[in-house]
Structure formats: structure tokens, C-alpha cells
């Protein structure tokens, strides 16, 4: 499953990341690597973005970016 399918308040673990390019590199720089836990904190009222908690800080991603991150439920 992918990160955009994770419901509000749920936590998951990153399996792999398929974004590539500048976005993929940026996410790697910020610690989106296999094994890392991510929690979905909030969803914006009009679909994008989604607010995530990773390694103790918040990141907002668009849903189509979240779709590029494969995760598993913890």
C-alpha cells in the first residue's frame, strides 16, 4: 500500500520510495527511507496536502507525492 492510503491518526512504516528526481531526493534528505515510521496527523479540507509526522517533525506532502511512498502498517 502507499502512504496516501493511510488514514488519519494511523502510523505506518516506509518500505520504499519510488518518486525519483528532485522530489525523491528531497524526501530522502528529510529522512524518508525504508524502515522509518510515519504518522498521518492531519488532512487538509480540500484534499491536499497531508500533514505527516516523521522523525519528530512535521512535513506536508501532496497526495500524489504520498502515493509514491510505499508503506506497511505497523
Amino acid at each position, binding site marked *: 500500500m502507499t502512504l496516501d492510503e493511510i488514514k488519519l491518526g494511523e502510523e505506518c512504516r516506509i518500505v520504499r520510495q519510488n518518486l525519483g528526481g528532485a522530489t525523491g531526493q528531497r524526501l530522502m*534528505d*528529510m529522512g524518508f527511507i525504508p524502515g522509518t515510521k510515519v504518522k498521518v496527523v492531519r488532512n487538509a479540507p480540500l484534499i491536499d496536502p497531508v500533514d505527516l509526522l516523521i522523525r519528530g517533525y512535521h512535513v506536508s506532502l501532496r497526495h500524489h507525492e504520498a502515493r509514491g511512498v510505499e508503506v506497511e502498517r505497523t
Partner: protein
Amino acid sequence: MNDPRREITVAVAGQPNSGKSTIFNMLTGARQHVANYPGVTIEKRSGKYSYKGDTVILVDLPGTYSLTSYSQEERIATDFLLYEKPAVVLDIIDASNLERNLYLTFQLQEMGMPLIIALNMMDVAEARGLRIDTQKLSELLKVPVIVTVGNKGKGKEELKTAIINARRNTENNNFRIDYGEKLEPILSLLEKRLSEDLKISLSYPVRWLAVKLMENDSVARRLVEKAFSK
């Protein structure tokens, strides 16, 4: 050697929101100069101060999460470090976000930069219940770590002293990240090949270049292709 007008250039690096500008302002006060990096519209702030007979020129690098070639800010920061060769790099770390911030620190170390760490926003980290063993951090990374709270001016004198001392300390920082048994053999092969080219090994840190080639970094590739095409 006894030139009374000694000047040292210090690059201020750090991730976005690490408090880089606050520390920059704390050290330089109002003596600042704003320009652009040549050819691009990214602001280049520099400032200076005198300390015990030395003039320290601070250059504020763009805030970046890392030093790849994907964004203009990152390329500018990398180029400045490679070609302007600052005497010291002051790495501003958000203490409340230590893990993420250390990623940039590792890259600076891989480039062989003489580093000082300002562990900034320590008050925020403590308010969140984090306790950081700064002495241990300094031992592990083999660089001086100074605790700062930029908006309260805490750590100002300590930083100024550390900057002067770091300049005098010509010892090579031999901190090295071990990439494990899968990558290290390939890295050392690359390092060996790169070292054989004098132009490359005199101009660039080969370990850094080897790692960048493994990342398929476009700037690193171009550097090497150019050197080996002759």
C-alpha cells in the same frame, strides 16, 4: 605570517529554519552586505566582525537540506564550499531536530570542511524534553560543538573563540561514514581511480566525489567526465 590585517572567511551552513540567519545576525550585528551570487537571483549575505585582532568574514549560504545538484540553492552552497574554500564552516543545527540536521553535517564532513557546530535552539529542544550530550556529540563527530540560543544571544563569545581556534587547527578531520560492506569496496575503488588524476585529487575531496558519483550526481559526473575525457 605577522600580517596584522588577518582575514578569515567563514561559511555559515545549515538546513532551512535552523536559525542560521539569527546566528549570522548575532555574530555580525549591523555590519552586513547583501548581494547576489553571480548570475543567479539568490541572495548572498555577508558580514564581518573583528575579534582579537582578526577580521572574520561571514558568508551566509542558502539554507539546504543537503548538498546535491538538484536545486540551485544546493549547487550554490556546494560551489562556494568547493571553490571559495572557506577557512571554517559554521554548521547551524536545530537541536530540536538533531537527526535530520545531522544529514547535512555529514555531507559537510565528507567534503573535508573544517567544521564547527552550533547546536542552536537548545531551549526549544529542552522544552520538548530532549537532553543532548554535547560532549559526546563533539567526540563522535570530532568537531567542536557550541550550544547556542540565537534569539537570546547565548553562545556568542564561545562561537567567536571556536571560530578563531578552528582556523588555527590545521589537523585534518578524519571523521568518516562507513557505508557498509556492499558499498565500501566500490567506493574505495572509485577513490583510488580518482586519486590517480592529479587535477581531480588536488581540487576535490575524492571521498566526497566518489560518494557523489555513486549517487549519480550530475555535477560530480560532469567534473569527472571533463577530467577524464582528455
